[in-house]
């Protein structure tokens, strides 16, 4: 089988990319999704708070996904569900996509272009470094979310949650509303990794305590969890003896962060950014392999799905351009160097001849900065200096570069992006 464009993953990223590519004139395309249904992680995120930016409404996850699934249907975009991509390889400039489907077995599709939109997964239990038994009753927060919200099963009645990322916070509320007692949320760091909005609405609203600088040091129970022991940690994140507290519970949820799912990308030889664990991409969201694009959580972990949709539409447009008129090979590549508090940027480089009039550059900061400014400069010349009351690691930031502005600078090879602060915050 041959296709012009294969999109791997039918979550919000894959759907938005497919829609944009189709609208830009690519007819011979296919979305491949391993789940039985489209929509990705949104299907299990039944809480509200999606689409505030795009639709000016607070939708739930399934409702937000529904809008894109409808659109894809309207445009007659073919989607193969229940089909998993198991290998990606190159043969000259063709991409060989090997897929596995229960009915059709294993087969290979030859594609001219590929969009990677596989999303991310939770960090494994390895994060929990505790000796002893592994009784039943220990789940990752995302797995618990799936049990409760899709299968309608409750994992337990008395719950302790380790990790205060957004999924952990949302599950604390979810399980409380379903009648469980969430005893405490413990966080190793001195600040929460979740959005403040979620701390207030998911914990404070229900009187669930958040213990910062705490970790689990022991789990009791052979068949099933009977209790966990928490202890406070010092600045080096080592448990402080004498601070142990045993808490009876039958369930421990682990919310230890997300990591882009890039086994396939690596197999293909896609160059990765060690900071994001996602591919290094240019202004077209194209990887180092010509005709291979990436978007959504597989590229960098997003907390707002609106940004995923926007970013993915760009990948779709650029893939279409690659297929129809051909993308010029990079000619004047400008790298973007992230320093002083800026952890990374997407894209990491851009080409003047290929960029659209306006180029969005997204980034995250490594700490909380108050009354600071994000500054973009070229050889000491400031191009952007935008002040903001707060920059926080939990919130993705952006700056917009214009082609016009960049073309005026002779021999531009590198842009530097940094945070300049008045004073530094203590955490959130």
């Amino acid at each position, binding site marked *: 089988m041959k296709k012009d464009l294969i999109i791997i993953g039918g979550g919000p990223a894959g759907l938005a990319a497919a829609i944009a590519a189709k609208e830009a004139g690519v007819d011979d395309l296919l979305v491949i999704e391993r789940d039985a249904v489209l929509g990705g992680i949104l299907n299990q995120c039944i809480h509200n708070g999606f689409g505030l930016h795009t639709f000016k409404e607070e939708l739930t996850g*399934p409702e937000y996904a529904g809008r894109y699934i409808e659109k894809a249907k309207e445009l007659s975009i073919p989607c193969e569900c229940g089909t998993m991509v198991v290998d990606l390889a190159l043969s000259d400039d063709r991409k060989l996509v090997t897929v596995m489907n229960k009915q059709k077995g294993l087969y290979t599709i030859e594609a001219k272009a590929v969009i990677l939109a596989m999303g991310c997964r939770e960090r494994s239990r390895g994060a929990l470094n505790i000796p002893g038994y592994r009784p039943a009753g220990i789940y990752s927060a995302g797995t618990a979310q799936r049990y409760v919200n899709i299968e309608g099963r409750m994992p337990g009645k008395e719950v302790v949650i380790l990790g205060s990322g957004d999924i952990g916070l949302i599950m604390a509320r979810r399980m409380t509303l379903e009648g469980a007692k969430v005893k405490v949320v413990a966080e190793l760091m001195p600040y929460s990794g979740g959005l403040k909005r979620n701390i207030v609405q998911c914990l404070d609203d229900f009187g669930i305590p958040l213990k910062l600088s705490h970790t689990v040091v022991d789990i009791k129970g052979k068949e099933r969890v009977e209790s966990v022991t928490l202890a406070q940690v010092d600045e080096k994140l080592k448990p402080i003896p004498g601070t142990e507290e045993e808490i009876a519970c039958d369930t421990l949820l682990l919310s230890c962060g997300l990591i882009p799912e890039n086994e396939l990308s690596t197999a293909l030889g896609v160059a990765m950014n060690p900071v994001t664990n996602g591919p290094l991409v240019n202004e077209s969201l194209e990887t180092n392999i010509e005709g291979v694009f990436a978007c959504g959580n597989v590229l960098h972990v997003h907390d707002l799905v609106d940004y995923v949709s926007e970013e993915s539409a760009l990948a779709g447009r650029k893939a279409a351009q690659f297929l129809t008129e051909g993308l010029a090979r990079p000619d004047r590549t400008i790298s973007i160097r992230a320093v002083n508090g800026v952890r990374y940027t997407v894209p990491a480089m851009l080409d003047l001849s290929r960029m659209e009039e306006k180029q969005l550059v997204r980034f995250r900061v490594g700490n909380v900065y108050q009354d600071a400014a994000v500054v973009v400069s070229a050889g000491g010349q400031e191009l952007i200096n935008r002040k903001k*009351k*707060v920059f926080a690691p939990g919130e993705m930031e952006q700056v917009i570069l214009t082609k016009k502005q960049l073309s005026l600078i002779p021999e531009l090879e590198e842009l530097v992006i940094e945070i300049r602060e008045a004073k530094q915050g203590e955490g959130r």
Partner: protein
Amino acid sequence: MSISTREFVCIGCPLGCNITVEHDEGQIKSITGNTCPRGAEYVTGELTDPRRIVTSLVKVEGGELPVVSVKTRTAIPKDKIFDCTRALRDIVVSAPVHMGDVVAADICSTGIDVIATKTVERG
């Protein structure tokens, strides 16, 4: 007159200001700690009529999935949250259920409907 104070964390933006409100049985006397007017709006709402959109699940009979996700169409008073989820636990709907279908009208006499946020076909 009995002035009491309440502390809030504003969720308007990531700054998360700690805001103190002095009030006399709900009559606001002073608001301090907010950096911008949105913070004052937020705490006024929180003090006089705190509301939340509630999202939960309802059992489905004969569907491709055993449950369907639902939400209150608009925010309901915060003190009705648990009544609402308790009431939803006793409801069973038959498949198919479509996104936007009313699953429970006027939940707990709030005047607000609970609607399905997902489509569950017959299974």
